[in-house]
């Protein structure tokens, strides 16, 4: 098993082991294993419906053929039933305070006066791919569509915090949105970042997605964007930013969204996790978008293989493609580079010579050599799936 942080050399060593597996039999088909239900929500296209209250909507994988995911196709994930459905931008205020010199109530106009920054970054749910975990785990049963690649624009959180003036002794910053719990006893959705992470260059409050306003279900009028980190921190419809002088102990940090405190963030399949830490930076991942599972191709004819690859903020160094279940690998051509937080499209022209069943796989490595494991790294919450995915196709 290859853990996070493994090098290319480790990978090549392990590749030999995988050959034996590949020779024994076909990989199990996991992608598209379940029947999907679709629904159309306001400002969203036809999406895979996980739940309706609160809404959890998954992006159909075909949208990943594009470098940028359109706003109406970006996945939706809320935790608490009282989702904001109406915001008067004139009345909306962002409360900034806590352990600060000043307590601010900033309007959208106030925010827009600050320097506008923009970049393209992958947004991905911690539980993307949870439905492929074996053994299965409870939670949102996402396929591979709890992600997207979006050009965000907004203001640096640092510039906002500087206006308020962070006092000495501050350790964390908490974030709350306009959503609320259905019962008073339900823990409100509040997330925190360390002061260092909150003050980082690229942590922004985004009021634009792909050059226009955010759909309500994606966090209108503004959301936190922490590029390279899982979207659990990207608090939607942001309403309060609070500087804390002691570590936050609310449910959504202390008990939920935690991973095993281990370099791989994993435990043996089915085991309990003991010592844990809050989930943080995304692992390196790639997904073959085309061809899709069970596609039929023609022997002797060129077939286009296409997909996307991304990492936790270190760009993509290369993507390897195998058309024989991992026995041999070829380097894919990479598409245009939209920066280290964006995903990178990859392309490979495959000419299958003989008829039969083939297993296509892709494996990406990021700028610091982190790659993808051959065996799934398992944890009880179904987080951080980044095993190499397999697509079985038929050549006729």
């Amino acid at each position, binding site marked *: 098993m290859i853990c996070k942080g493994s090098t290319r050399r480790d990978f090549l060593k392990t590749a030999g082991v995988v050959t034996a597996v590949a020779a024994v039999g076909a990989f199990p088909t996991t992608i598209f294993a379940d029947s999907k239900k679709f*629904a*159309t*929500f*306001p*400002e969203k296209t036809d999406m895979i*419906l*996980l*739940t*309706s*209250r*609160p*809404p959890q909507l998954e992006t159909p994988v075909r949208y990943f053929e594009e470098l940028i995911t359109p706003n109406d196709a970006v996945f939706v994930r809320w935790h608490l*039933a009282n*989702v904001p*459905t*109406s*915001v*008067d*931008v*004139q009345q909306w205020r962002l409360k900034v305070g806590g352990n600060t010199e000043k307590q601010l109530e900033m309007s959208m106009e106030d925010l827009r006066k600050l320097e506008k920054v923009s970049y393209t970054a992958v947004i991905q749910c911690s539980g993307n791919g949870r*439905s492929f975990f074996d053994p*299965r785990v*409870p939670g*949102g*049963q996402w396929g591979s569509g709890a992600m997207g690649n979006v050009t965000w624009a907004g203001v640096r959180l640092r510039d906002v915090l500087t206006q308020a003036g962070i006092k000495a002794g501050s350790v964390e910053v908490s974030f709350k949105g306009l959503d609320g*719990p*259905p*019962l*008073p*006893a*339900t*823990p409100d959705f509040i997330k925190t970042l360390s002061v260092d992470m909150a003050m980082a260059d690229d942590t922004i409050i985004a009021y634009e997605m792909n050059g226009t*306003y955010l759909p*309500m*279900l994606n966090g*209108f*009028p503004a959301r936190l964007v922490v590029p390279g980190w899982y979207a659990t921190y990207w608090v939607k419809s942001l309403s309060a930013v609070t500087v804390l002088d002691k570590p936050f102990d609310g*449910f959504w940090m202390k*008990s939920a969204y935690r991973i095993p405190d281990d370099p791989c963030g994993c435990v043996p399949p089915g085991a309990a996790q003991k010592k844990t830490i809050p989930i943080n930076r995304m692992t390196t991942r790639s997904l073959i978008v085309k061809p899709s599972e069970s596609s039929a191709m023609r022997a002797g004819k060129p077939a286009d293989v296409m997909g996307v690859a991304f990492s936790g903020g270190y760009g993509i160094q290369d993507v390897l493609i195998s058309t024989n279940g991992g026995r041999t690998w070829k380097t894919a051509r990479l598409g245009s580079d939209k920066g280290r937080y964006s995903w990178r499209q990859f392309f490979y022209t495959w000419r299958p010579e003989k008829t039969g069943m083939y297993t296509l796989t892709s494996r990406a490595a990021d700028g610091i050599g982190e790659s993808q494991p051959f065996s799934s790294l398992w944890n009880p919450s179904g987080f951080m799936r980044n095993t190499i995915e397999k697509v079985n196709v038929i050549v006729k």
Partner: protein
Amino acid sequence: MKTATALALLMIVAIGLAYAASEQEVHSITLPTLHTELKDGPGKMKTETLCAVCHSVDYITMQPKFSRAQWSAEVTKMIKVMGASISEEDATTITGYLTVQYGTGN
């Protein structure tokens, strides 16, 4: 005179545009109400009523088949952690229903 009329008309148009712009400052959506029917069986009514206080029951139907212990852990989490007001007796009924209809049966 003509100039004054034109100015007045222009002002009306301008006010109209400003009004339209401020109207758009209120951004609203209406969420659809989607119904998911749970499988028939003893405990269905309790499950539907008590779980749907906080979330749609597609939270149940999307899960893989869990054992009694796993469903029991989920129900306990809803009560102890998420603050659901469900009696011990009802919790047993719901766990039983989920195990039979959406679980491994044991």
